[in-house]
């Protein structure tokens, strides 16, 4: 399995992007599926309710009902991925929550044509039920691509680039004292502090501080965190 997508460039500096596997892909899809089903059902219910209120006991006719209720609901359900991937530059709410995004093979945002092809091939990927073909393809493909991705030349990657604020929190003194690599490890651990189990983060913090020769006498959770924060001042 290739876990990295290498993007060559004219300057000779290659960039490597981490390819998302079937797990992250499924997680994003499940979130998106719930959002689009809820949005479509919400529209259908609201439009049906409004039509019923406006027309009272008189039937509005199949044409009005179709145009106001059914067609927009189907459009929300079927065009959700295509439209949002264009607007959000290769992301959808589900992909954003799963920390992944779509890129073309040159690392850029895929064009509307490629996104259209990718979504049309859902017809095959979703066969016979619940995306069995697509999921099986991602499991056997070296780059975890489904058929739609192969056809469109798109790759799903982890979208984990840090923000400006993360960089800002790395002080020059910390880099000078620890070196860039160590300072980043400390910053990374502090960034994930609340996501980790207390035992795991204390163990990691203690190992890191010992390696750097800054292990505190008091080894409780708060003291270890304070010691790490002290390294970045």
């Amino acid at each position: 399995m290739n876990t990295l997508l290498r993007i060559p460039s004219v300057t000779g500096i290659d960039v490597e992007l981490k390819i998302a596997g079937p797990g992250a892909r499924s997680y994003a899809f499940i979130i998106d599926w719930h959002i689009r089903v809820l949005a479509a059902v919400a529209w259908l219910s609201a439009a049906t309710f409004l039509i019923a209120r406006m027309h009272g006991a008189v039937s509005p006719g199949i044409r009005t009902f179709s145009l106001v209720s059914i067609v927009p609901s189907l459009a929300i359900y079927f065009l959700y991925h295509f439209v949002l991937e264009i607007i959000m530059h290769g992301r959808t709410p589900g992909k954003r929550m799963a920390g992944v995004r779509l890129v073309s093979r040159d690392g850029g945002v895929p064009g509307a044509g490629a996104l259209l092809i990718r979504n049309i091939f859902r017809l095959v990927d979703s066969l016979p039920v619940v995306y069995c073909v697509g999921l099986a393809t991602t499991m056997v493909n070296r780059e975890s691509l489904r058929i739609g991705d192969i056809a469109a030349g798109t790759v799903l990657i982890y979208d984990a680039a840090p923000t400006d604020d993360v960089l800002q929190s790395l002080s020059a003194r910390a880099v000078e004292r620890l070196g860039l690599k160590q300072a980043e490890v400390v910053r990374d651990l502090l960034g994930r502090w609340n996501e980790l189990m207390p035992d795991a983060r204390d163990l990691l913090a203690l190992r890191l501080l010992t390696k750097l020769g800054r292990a505190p006498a008091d080894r409780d959770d708060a003291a270890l965190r304070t010691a790490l924060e002290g390294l970045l001042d």
Partner: protein
Amino acid sequence: MSENAKTARWFTQRLPAWRDIAGRLANLERGASAEPEDLLAAVRSYPEIARDLAVAQRSSPQGQVTRYLERVYLDLHRTIFRRPGDLKHEIPMVFLRDAPAVARTLRVHIAWIAALFVICAAAGAWLVATYPELVSLFASEQMIDHVMRGELWTDGLLNILPSSILSVQIFANNIMVALFTLCLGAAYGLGTVYIIGVNGLMLGGVFAFTAQYRLAGRLFAFVCAHGFVELSAIIVAGAIGASLGEALARPGPLTRGAAFQQATARGAKLMLVLVVFLVGSGLLEGFVSPDSAYPLAARLTIGLAYFALFVFVLSGGADKVLTRNSAQRSKGAALLVRAVFNRDSKREESRLKTAPTI
């Protein structure tokens, strides 16, 4: 100065520049309305960011600074090297040049798929003519009941649904069939062959069945306004699907994935044109075909004219006509310019002749 001190100095000095260019990149996402100085700054910073990225990759290969710079560098690369988009020009070109060029490339596939369809239709007709009970394989019970009562299932279709809704349902269904025919080419073309074969068998079988009840003429009258283009579009979609299958089976010098992607991108342009024609067919099937006010001659004329337009567009005829008109206009303009120039030259000549000499 220690290595760490050098890195710290580099980091402190360069961080404002990285943040500045990241901000400018957000502005550049606006495209044509972006400020020129943002674009110039992006171009100037491209080699600098590349150099910074190289330093970061050496100092901390998978670190946060490296990942941040990779993102900025990729965005810069995409912004600077992105092809200018011109949809107003590109979409007409798909209809005028790209789709006809793809159709020419796929003419062998189109011929094979059309032959398969005709053979399957003939086989379906022969099967039902020889073994009438097999019609249940190709038609629903409701359709069979209608025909046995001496009427077509399409009779009184407009009493059930208005033409507009009927049209939308029909073209949505036809577009889905065409897309399935194309996409199932991903199964080495076998899915496409299956769909084309089944559709051929159904058409032949149903026609043979209606013929047994002397309704084939009425069925043809119903089908002829929309059917020529509808069936042709599905056959061409089948040809695109077959080309996808061929790209996987015989990728040539490319990898299978790259050949498949190339074949899909090529076929998508033709598919776009087919979708537009299928919408037209759906409208005809909703508004003309079920309406008994249209006699057979009118239906046939509409159907053949629409088919002629289909062939005209896919053979590149529209482009030839437009190019010829444009050439004639250019020639006319050139003649006009020359005439004006000659007139002005003659005037100047006569002015010089009459002018007093010094």
